[in-house]
């Protein structure tokens, strides 16, 4: 009975942490006469978190299989340029977006095949594709940014429902709901956990491990491509360097959410909280006008504290 209580607490620790951060920021901000806790700013935070949250879905499922994908930031940059060039040349927006998702899938397929069939470590494969894809992003338009394309694409990020809820929130809710259901209730989802937990056992139990791994990387690439579409729609300006180091933010969100780097353990639902915590930190600290470099320090410390708190359970078990 006591044991059960403990597990419950650690399951909720990330939510407690998030509420704690909100609480602290609300107090400090109101002491400074700034407005932190209101519906507008909460939506603001979720909207700012949305791109990272989408990337973090991919990061989470890849990490759950015991792998890692460092190429997603480059995919974001590549897709931005590719999409902007295509719609500038008159391609209908839906077609252009589908092409981008295909690009993301192909890059994921490339990563997945090398990792599963080629036995190249995920870190190395995706480190390589990270650089190669970033190079491609610069090559396709000669290193130049793209602008002057039809601005209708902005509706994908700038639409608001009921005047307050940004469309980014909708993407997060839909994609997370779908992926959480897949992870919990399908053979594919259980296979991901099994693979990350013990790949040998997973293979023996009849899971097509290699195929599953490839699909996971394809999904990760597609989420990254979608995040690239979102970023372009938000900024209406495609820069080949866009999305650099986004992979680290995505991994950080997954890790804060309690996804174990060794694979097989963690809940996708908590990843979105991780992404929101990261966005909240930037938002709150910037509202307080804290100098930028302190923000980096504070964010880094929070990542460490979050993982430390999350591992409490495992340490106790030992």
């Amino acid at each position: 009975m006591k044991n059960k209580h403990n597990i419950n607490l650690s399951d909720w620790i990330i939510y407690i942490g998030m509420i704690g951060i909100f609480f602290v920021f609300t107090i400090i901000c109101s002491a400074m006469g700034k407005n932190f806790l209101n519906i507008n700013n909460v939506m603001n935070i979720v909207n700012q978190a949305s791109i990272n949250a989408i990337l973090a879905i991919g990061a989470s499922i890849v990490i759950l299989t015991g792998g890692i994908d460092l190429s997603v930031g480059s995919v974001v940059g590549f897709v931005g340029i590719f999409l902007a060039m295509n719609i500038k040349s008159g391609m209908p927006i839906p077609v252009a977006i589908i092409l981008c998702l295909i690009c993301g899938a192909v890059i994921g397929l490339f990563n997945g095949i090398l990792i599963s069939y080629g036995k190249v470590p995920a870190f190395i494969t995706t480190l390589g594709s990270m650089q190669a894809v970033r190079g491609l992003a610069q090559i396709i338009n000669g290193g130049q940014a793209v602008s002057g394309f039809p601005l209708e694409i902005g509706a994908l990020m700038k639409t608001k429902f009921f005047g307050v809820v940004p469309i980014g929130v909708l993407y997060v809710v839909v994609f997370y709901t779908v992926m959480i259901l897949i992870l919990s209730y399908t053979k594919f989802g259980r296979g991901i956990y099994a693979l990350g937990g013990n790949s040998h056992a997973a293979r023996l139990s009849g899971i097509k491990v290699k195929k599953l791994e490839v699909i996971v990387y394809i999904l990760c690439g597609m989420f990254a491509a979608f995040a690239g579409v979102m970023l372009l729609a938000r900024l209406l300006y495609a820069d080949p360097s866009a999305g650099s180091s986004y992979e680290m933010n995505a991994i950080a969100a997954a890790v804060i959410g309690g996804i174990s780097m060794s694979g097989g353990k963690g809940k996708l639902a908590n990843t979105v909280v991780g992404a929101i915590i990261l966005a909240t930190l930037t938002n709150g600290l910037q509202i307080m006008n804290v100098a930028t470099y302190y923000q980096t320090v504070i964010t880094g410390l929070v990542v460490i504290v979050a993982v430390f708190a999350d591992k409490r359970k495992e340490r106790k078990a030992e």
Partner: protein
Amino acid sequence: MKKKLVSALLCMAMVGTMLVGCSGGNEGGTDDSKSEDKASDTEVVDESAEVSDKLAEEIKSQVPDKDYSEYTIGFCGMTLNNEYHIIVANAVAQSGKALGMKVEIQAGAEHQSVEEQLTIIENYVSQGVDGIILVPAASEGLISALQECKDAGIPVINLDTKLDDNTLKTLGEDIPFYGTDNYVGGQMVGEKVAEMYPDGCKTAILRGVQGQTNDDDRYNGFLDKAGDVVDLVAEQHANWETDLGYTAIQNIIQANPDLQVIYCENDLMGIGAYQAVDEAGLTDKIKIFSYDGVTEGLQYVIDEKFVSTCAQQPIEMGKLGVVNMAKILAGDKAETYIDTGCKLVTIDNAEDTLAETEKYAAEISATK
């Protein structure tokens, strides 16, 4: 089986594209393995392009008469992922070509890639280039590379971002610098703001990468002229990037709904700032003053999304770099300091400036 075949083909296609992408840059010559992953950057500058006669004449008229075809100069740029720096690189490449020199172009992957620049310069030194033209990614931190150049007797010319005085003092050498006095540019923007808001205004500043002289100068120059007038409510380092500028301004607006002025130290951050202001529906209340004068920035001024931007002369810098490097190689003295100047671009002169920039850019990317 069919599926496997398809996936194998797709895989090969992907590998093929990447290999092509990665190997293309080595045509330039003696790149060693370390610079291979930067090969994509080299692609940006079209080395096969011929130089227009006009440019060739202009450059030749400024240097001592001599055969320069023996010489190789290495250009180490800050980055090649934005228009401004590409123009500097193109100007150097084309001007060098005008003299028949071999020009190698390398740059860091991002604005603050100091370590990559160290590697690039070390590679240039070991290749034995005859001169190095440098746009430093940080005003400090390149001392060891510069020391190597000095020891190897390779002349260095500094463009755009000035190496700081301490670095030069430590090095015990004066490195020629041609670029804009960013402090003066900052003052111009400051004057404009002070003139438009004589009774003061709530102001936010988006700054670049901390530690770069450009950032400090643009900031201090602005405050020198506008500091008494403006009420500075927020400042954030958005590292010259569009997405960081966007997020920072969203948050700053949240904290200061009555904000009136945003000063962005470059156009990329300005573009992000405008998107955030536009989304908040505050374009009537918040005015953006930008800096750099890249084509998109000028377009924003024409569209009245920016009140002004401060245009620099990247082409002039590149030309001066090569001309003076040629002088050094010919045994003459180079100019130690040239202010290439900058001008405040507003709605009145934005269209002209844009046309001029495009013309210049066309001239520099040359007739094929």
